[in-house]
Structure formats: structure tokens, C-alpha cells
């Protein structure tokens, strides 16, 4: 089973924690909001992804089944 990272742009307020925890798949745009690579996340990166999701202070980041 593989997963995909999603950000809810309404909930997100651009703290940028996700990009710090998971730079492999999350970068920040020029205004500090996350640009999420939504290609499926394999088992090698899953733990990083989970950590980023858990670290989001406003719960804007989600892991969905791909």
C-alpha cells in the first residue's frame, strides 16, 4: 500500500514545519506556503511523512491512501 501527501490550503497557515521535517517531498513557495509533491510515498519515506503530518500545528497535512 502506498500513500500520498495532501495539504488543505484553507487550513494551512504557512508555519513551514512540514518542509523542515520532510524536505524530500515538501518545499515552500516564495510566500512560505508548502508545495507538496503528491507522487506516492514508498515505505522508505513513510516515517518522514508521518513525522511531518504529526508536526503540523494546524493539522493541515494529511496522508491519504494512493
Amino acid at each position: 500500500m502506498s500513500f500520498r501527501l495532501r495539504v488543505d490550503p484553507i487550513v494551512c497557515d504557512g508555519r513551514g514545519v512540514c518542509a523542515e521535517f520532510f524536505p524530500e517531498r515538501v518545499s515552500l513557495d516564495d510566500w512560505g506556503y508548502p508545495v507538496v509533491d503528491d507522487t506516492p510515498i514508498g515505505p522508505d519515506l513513510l516515517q518522514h511523512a508521518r513525522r511531518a503530518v504529526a508536526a503540523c500545528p494546524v493539522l493541515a497535512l494529511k496522508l491519504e491512501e494512493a
Partner: protein
Amino acid sequence: MSVAAPIVDKAPAPERLPRLLADVGAAWVTLDEHRRRAGPIPPTTRGPRVDIIDAVARAGLRGKGGGAFPTARKMEAVAAGPGRPIVVVNGAEGEPASGKDKLLLTRAPHLVIDGALVAAAAVGGREVIVCVDRQTDSALESMQRALSERAASEPTSIPVRLVGVPSHYVSGEETALVRWLNGGDAKPTTPPRPFERGVGRRPTLVDNVETLAHLAQIVRWGPAWFRSTGTRSEPGSTLITVSGAVARPGVYEVPLGASMQRVLTRTGALEGDVVAVLVGGYFGTWLTAEQAAAARVSCDDLARYGAGLGCGVIVALPRDACGVVEAARVVSWLAASTAGQCGSCVHGLASLADAAGAVARGRAPRDAAMQLVRWAGQLEGRGACRLPDGAARFLRSSLATFHREVDRHLRGADCPDHRKVLPLPNPVRDAWR
């Protein structure tokens, strides 16, 4: 099985265009007159009417609000959901250069109501909610008058409710309508989509006013009749709103696949005066005069230029206007139209507007165009709705189409005497509820 079968009278199907605008004139068309010409509509039942959905699929009708999504597929999805659905008539028409929905709402309200009731019959709907911009008095009044006529002489089988929705550009987005109808702000939301969970958590069919008007005629005259104009992949007629450098701006009904040149000529564009043509509104794309001369009014054909028909807006830019100034004006207006929910939209569009404005005034650094393209690339798919995507698309198209003018502005030109062409309503003072 044919849905056109149960029609009682023998009136011949209209052979020529206009179809939707056949009865549109100065005089009010009463319900009796409308019924004589348009024929009866099928009654609403508890369950979905597969025969109607099938006829819509065979007609090949696609949504006319801008998305061009196959209407039958949306109906199927709504009909398959749990509980009796709601039908929402989307008459918000926030696109400043578009007037087709307002025209139908004011001059052919009974056709629109017929279409909504047919849609409700198709999905087994329990209620129709007609949404009209609450600052467009003419549309509200005519719809109210039409509904009063129905109440008096032809009570509808399910309730039809008219509501005036907040007057904001993004409030016509279907999730914004649903959120507002559920008591919230008229601002777009993230999924679930209305077809899954909409008004009162019920599956909700949100269809554009023009889409529903076509639907009424498809059920009346049949899919084969509908397909007798237009192209094989895009059948039927479509409404376009033409403005700018034309002698006779207005709403026209043309076959899909019509020649853009012919549209411009028919609406009185002066030979040599049109330097570019905007298609699809402010989420749309510019065609150069040469491209426009070869293009057709069709999504398939316009895709060759990276363009689409959108909601049918066509604006001809005259020689004495400046594409760079127009781009800056529109992007600034779009930035002011944000619902203010998504960070990239709020800040990104503000950055785009500032930089585009500086370019237009001849005050931008030489690398400003590259910066704008980079920002536009960062904005795609970044909002709950398509406002950031639309603004980015429009700006990129402007930079590409008017690249010579952009260079001139980057060297300090500021076009003080340009003519302003693209219509921009004053910033709306309206609440979100």
C-alpha cells in the same frame, strides 16, 4: 427508449439557431406562451429517471459554466448518492465580461426553470434552489415573476426556491454556493464535492443556467435534434458574450465549432482593428489576431492554442488598448477577489498584481517578466478553488501574447493614453453571508 416520445403536441422542432434565444426579445414571455412553444416537461418522481440521463449522455451536453464537464456523468454521480438529491441552479455569473446567464435569467426564466425541473426529474431530486447574484435586481425580479406565474397556474411537483447569493467573484464556485446554502460564508471549500455531499449533506447537482436551458430542449426535442448542429465531439449550440472592439457587443448563440472570424465579423469588428482576442474570461487565454482568424468556437479547437471556451466570453482588444495594462488591471482585480482563505492565493496574487502593475507603469526591474512567470508556476493547484490557477494562466498568456509590449514596458514605457477595455466591476461591498 426515447425521452422525446411522450411529448403531446406536434409542434415541429426548431431547425435553425437561435434555440435558447428563440423567444428572447423585448416582451415578457408568459408561462402560457412559453408552454405552447416549449412543450410540457416530464414530472419529477421519487427515483432517478435513467431515460433522461441517457438522453443527455447521447446528446453529449457539457457544462456551460466554464468546466465543460459532461452533464450526464455529473447527474449519474448525484443520482447514485444516498438520499434524494438537491438541484442548484447556478445563476451567480460572477465573470465580469459574461452576460449570457443574466440574459437567460431575465428573458427566458421559464426555460431555465424547465431545465432545473428536468434535472430534478433526472436525478430524483426533492428540491430546486435557484441561485442568483443578489445585486442583480433584474434577474431576481424576472425569476420571481416567473415563479409566481408557475405558482398560480402550474404548481411545480417539487419546491422551487429563489435565493440571492453574495455578490463575489468566487461565490459562484459550486462549493461556495453549497457552503453558503448550508449557512456558511459564500467561499469555496475543499472536498467533499457537492455531488457527494452538498446542501443539507445531500448529494447536490449544481448546474449552470445555460446548461439547464439546453437540458430542457434536449428532453423536448431529443438528442438527435441537439446534435444536428455543432461538431461530432462538441454537439449543439452555445452562448457567447462578445465585447471589446466590436460594433455590436452582446450575447450570441452560435453552433459549437463556428468560425471565430465569422463571430467577429458578425458582431462588427473592424478589419485590422483587433490585435488580440481574449477567450474564456479572466481564467482564459489570449489569441493573437492571426490565431483568432483561424480558430473555432470549440474547446477541442481552442486547445491547440492552450485555450478553452470557458463560460463563452470573447473580448476583442482594439489597437488603441494595451495588453500589458489590461493584464495588470485584471490581475489586480482578481487579487482583490480572493476569498482570503488560502495563503498562496492571498499573497501570491498580491505579488502578481504588484509586479504586473509595476510593469504596466514602466517602473519594473528588467527581470520582472521572468519573476512573474516563476510566480505563476508556483500558483497552480494551490488553492481550494481555481482562482490562483486562473490568474496564473491569464498572466502567462498575457506575457506570451504581448511579449513585444512587455519589452517596451520593461524599457520604461507606461501607456498613459491607452483605452481601458476589459470590464472590471467596482470592488464589491458585500458580506460573505
